[in-house]
């Protein structure tokens, strides 16, 4: 049986852990609020970019950019957006599972990866996937420039490397408790229904010309999507981490309460035993005197 000292030492250790998890919870909460504001402010841009490109896919006829032409052959490229660190519950596991099963289904086990975030990179190495490019330590105030080399790696795998599709996977931030693993095809631009998009006769007027405009627009579209995915990840990550740390803190509290109860019982048992000994001793003395 554990002695009182052992139990007290255990309580102290858990109280230290609780202090750490509580501090991490506070930090994550502060970062989460900023990341949430950023993802909300950036979402209209990503959505509008998607809509413009979908419009071009629908009504642009003068020049069909390679991003608008479906392919039958070639490997798949996965842009895998995960966090660098853990302690965020099942956030990365869920993203990796959704992404991996999509890629397995469509491309088999030998697909290529552009890894944004350490967890995705480690996963890709473990699965012995071909990592075309990787980037860890993306800043919280991420801008388009920071991601440009990663986007270029994915785009050139499609344009020059003959890839069939570029797929993007990230956890979409819905709210504090819910982050949805999201896997979507970026390139070739997925077709939209007939009912959606503009109903116009004829093509755009392009300035300066169709090819020049689309050769700029298409990579910018991929950049916008990847930038937004990273922001979604950041909001998701800090939310998941905050919740995980809150759970850890409250679990630590439970353990401390239980251990304190045990400690008190052990202490009380000790006192009772000593009292019994004293009383027993006193009675023995009295009996001897009679």
């Amino acid at each position, binding site marked *: 049986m554990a002695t009182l000292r052992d139990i007290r030492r255990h309580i102290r250790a858990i109280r230290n852990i609780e202090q750490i998890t509580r501090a991490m919870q506070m930090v994550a909460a502060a970062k989460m609020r900023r990341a949430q504001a*950023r993802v909300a*402010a*950036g979402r*209209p*841009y990503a959505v*509008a*970019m998607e*809509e*413009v490109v979908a*419009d*071009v896919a629908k*009504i*642009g006829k003068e020049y069909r950019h390679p991003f608008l032409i479906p392919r039958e052959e070639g490997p798949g490229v996965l842009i895998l957006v995960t966090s660098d660190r853990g302690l965020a519950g099942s956030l990365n596991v869920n993203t990796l599972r959704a992404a991996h099963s999509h890629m397995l289904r469509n491309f088999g086990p030998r697909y290529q990866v552009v890894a944004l975030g350490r967890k995705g990179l480690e996963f890709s190495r473990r699965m012995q996937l071909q990592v075309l490019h990787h980037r860890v330590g993306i800043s919280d105030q991420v*801008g*388009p420039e920071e991601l440009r080399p990663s986007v270029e790696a994915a785009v050139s795998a499609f344009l020059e490397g003959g890839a069939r599709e570029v797929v993007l996977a990230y956890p979409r931030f819905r709210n504090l408790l819910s982050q949805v693993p999201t896997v979507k095809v970026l390139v070739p631009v997925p077709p939209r229904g007939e009912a959606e998009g*503009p109903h*116009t006769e*004829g*093509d*755009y*007027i*392009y*300035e*300066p010309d169709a090819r*020049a*405009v689309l050769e*700029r*627009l298409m990579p*910018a579209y991929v950049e*916008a999507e990847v*930038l937004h995915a990273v922001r979604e990840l950041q909001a998701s990550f800090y939310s998941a981490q905050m919740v995980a740390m809150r759970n850890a803190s409250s679990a630590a509290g439970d353990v401390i309460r239980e251990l304190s109860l045990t400690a008190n019982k052990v202490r009380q048992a000790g006192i009772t035993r000593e009292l019994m000994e004293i009383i027993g001793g006193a009675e023995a003395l009295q009996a001897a005197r009679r």
Partner: protein
Amino acid sequence: MAVRVRILASDQPLLEGEADFLTFRGADGDLGVLPQHAPLLTWLKPGEVMVRQGEGERYVFLEGGFLEVLPNLVTVVAERGLLSTAIGLEAAEEDLRGSQERATRDPESPAAAHLLEVAQARVAAAQLQRRRERD
């Protein structure tokens, strides 16, 4: 008759609403857009977009971006931009001096040339804005 317009930067929506007339700095030169304009697609040079609605005019400075015109909807997406009222002239001039130095140090670099163009356009926009505020 008005056209719906939305101007979005990668870090914030800049302007959403209706307009009677708009002007842009397109790839082939300045262009004006009225409602029911034919579909048009171009990239934008660094500079101001003017959005007129009724008597009011609003100005947005963009470092570049893309313009899609549809008969009932005008969409502008730009990596960076801000309302012209939010540009500080002094900061813009300071930035321009830095860009000029960089462009003279490295005259071959397209990135430096682009930054210089953006900085010049921002100073021009800030000066225009100051004049508008005086009038």
